C-alpha cells in the first residue's frame, strides 16, 4: 500500500506521471546500465610500458 505523505504536497498529477512513465524510464535505465557493463567488459585493458632498462 502506498503511504500518503503530508509534509510536501506531492500532487496527484505528479504521482500519476511517475506511474505512467516510470516503467519506461526504469527499463531504459537498466538497458543503458547493461550496455555500459558490456562495453566496459570488452574495453582493452591499458598495458604497462616496457621497462627501457631491461
Amino acid at each position, binding site marked *: 500500500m502506498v503511504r*500518503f505523505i503530508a509534509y510536501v504536497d506531492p500532487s496527484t*498529477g505528479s504521482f*500519476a506521471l511517475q506511474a505512467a512513465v516510470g516503467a519506461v524510464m526504469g527499463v531504459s535505465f537498466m538497458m543503458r546500465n547493461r550496455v555500459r557493463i558490456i562495453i566496459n567488459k570488452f574495453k582493452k585493458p591499458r598495458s604497462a610500458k616496457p621497462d627501457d632498462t631491461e
Partner: protein
Amino acid sequence: MIPSKLKNGREQSSFRDDWGFVFWRDGLIYRQVNAPAKDAFEHLMSSGLYDTLVKQGLLVRHETVAGELPEGAHVVIRPEQLPAISYPYEWSFSQLKDAALATLKIQTLALRHGMSLRDASAYNIQFVAGKPRLIDTLSFELRPEGQPWVAYQQFCQHFLAPLVLMARVDADLLQLMRVHIDGIPLPLAARLLPIKDRLNFGLATHISLHAKFQRQHEGTAEKPQAAVSATSLAGLIDSLERTVRSLKLPKNKTQWGDYYDHTNYSDASFEVKGKIVADFLDQIKPRRVVDLGANDGSFSRIAAGQGALVISSDIDPVAVERNYLQMKANGETNLLPLLVDLTNPSPALGWAGRERQSFTERAQADAALALALIHHLAIAANVPLEQVAEYFASLTPHLVIEFVPKSDSQVKRLLATREDIFRDYTPTGFESAFARYFEIVERREVTGSERLMYLMRRKK
C-alpha cells in the same frame, strides 16, 4: 539587528515541519527532532546513509546534544554552523545546477539505503566550503516498496524549471524564484519553453507532461494512488540527472560579464590597485568580507587569500557564473559568489516576511569592498552619495572604496546621453557625503589612473 551570539529562541523560518524545527541557543543553531521522526532518524543514523552523505560532503554533520529533552522531542542535535546563508535566486546558473545534481545524488544514495527525500527544496541546500550541501537532516523518510517520489514535483519546480528557463530563454528568469518561493509553477515554465525544446524528451516529460498531468488531476479530492517500483524510480532520477546535465548557459555577452577584459586600467595600474586593496585589508584583518560589485571576484580573492570568508556579489549573471566556475576550478573554500543587484537587493520574503532573510541582514561583515561601484550607484542609479554611505555603514564598520571621477572613461560613458545633474559627484563631494558615517583612515591614488582608493572606518 540582534548580534548572533545573543540570539535565542525558535528560528522564525522553521515552522512547517511537524518532524522537528530549528532553534537558536546563545547564538548557535540547534535542531529538535520530534517523536514522529524517530524511526526515520534512527534509520538514517544506523543504515550508513548519514555516514556516506557526510563523508561525501553532501549533508551537514551534527552532534547529539546531551541533557534533558523538551516535551515531544526524540533528540536534539547541533548541526555544523554555517558561516553564510544564500538563496537560489542569488545563485548563478552553475550553482543552481550543482545544487540540483547534489540533490539527485542524495536521493540516489537515500534509495540505496531504503530511504527517500521527503522534500527537494532548493532552500535545503547551502554552499559550504564552495560546495552544495543538504542542511535539513530531517529530509529523509523510510520508503515503502512502491511509493512514488513525493518530492518529484518540488524538485522540478525548485530546480529543473528555473534551470531550463535560464538555459533556453533568459538567465534573468531566475528572478521568478523571488516571486514564486515554492519554485516556478510547471504550467508557467511549460508555456515559456520554446517550441523546439518541447520535443526534448526530458523537458517534455518533466516539465510539459508534468504540467499537463497536474492540470488533469487538480481538484481531485482523493488521495493519490500510484505504485512505482524501485527500478522505475531509479530510471526517473537518472532521467532527471541527464536532463539537468544537458542544460548549459548560452555564451551571451552581458553588460559587465567581461568587464575586466575591457577596462581602462593598464596592467600596471590594475596591479597597483590590487596592492592597495591588500594593504588596506591587512590593516583591518577582517574575518568576513562582503565584496559589493565584485564582478569576477578578482579583488574578492585578495581578501580570501588573507583568510577571510568573502561574500562576492555582483549584478551581472555572467560575471557571477565566471566567478563561481573559477572558484570550483581552483578548489577555493572561502568564497561565496552571489547574484545581487544593490539597487534592489533580495528582500525578506515568505510568510510574514520572515522565512527568507534580506541580503542586507545576511551581508553583515567586518569589512566591505566597494570597488569600481560608486559611479554605478550615484550616477547610473541616481542614488544620492549620502544614502550610499548610510547603506554601507549599515553593513560594515570598515570600508575599502574606490572613487571613480567624471574624467574616467567609464563615467563619461554613463553621462554620454544624460544631462550631468551630479554637481556633488566630486572627490570633495564624495568625502563630504561619507564623512557623516565614516572617518577616512587613508586615501591613495591609483597610479596610472585618476581613481582614488579610500580606507574608511565607521563612526561610532
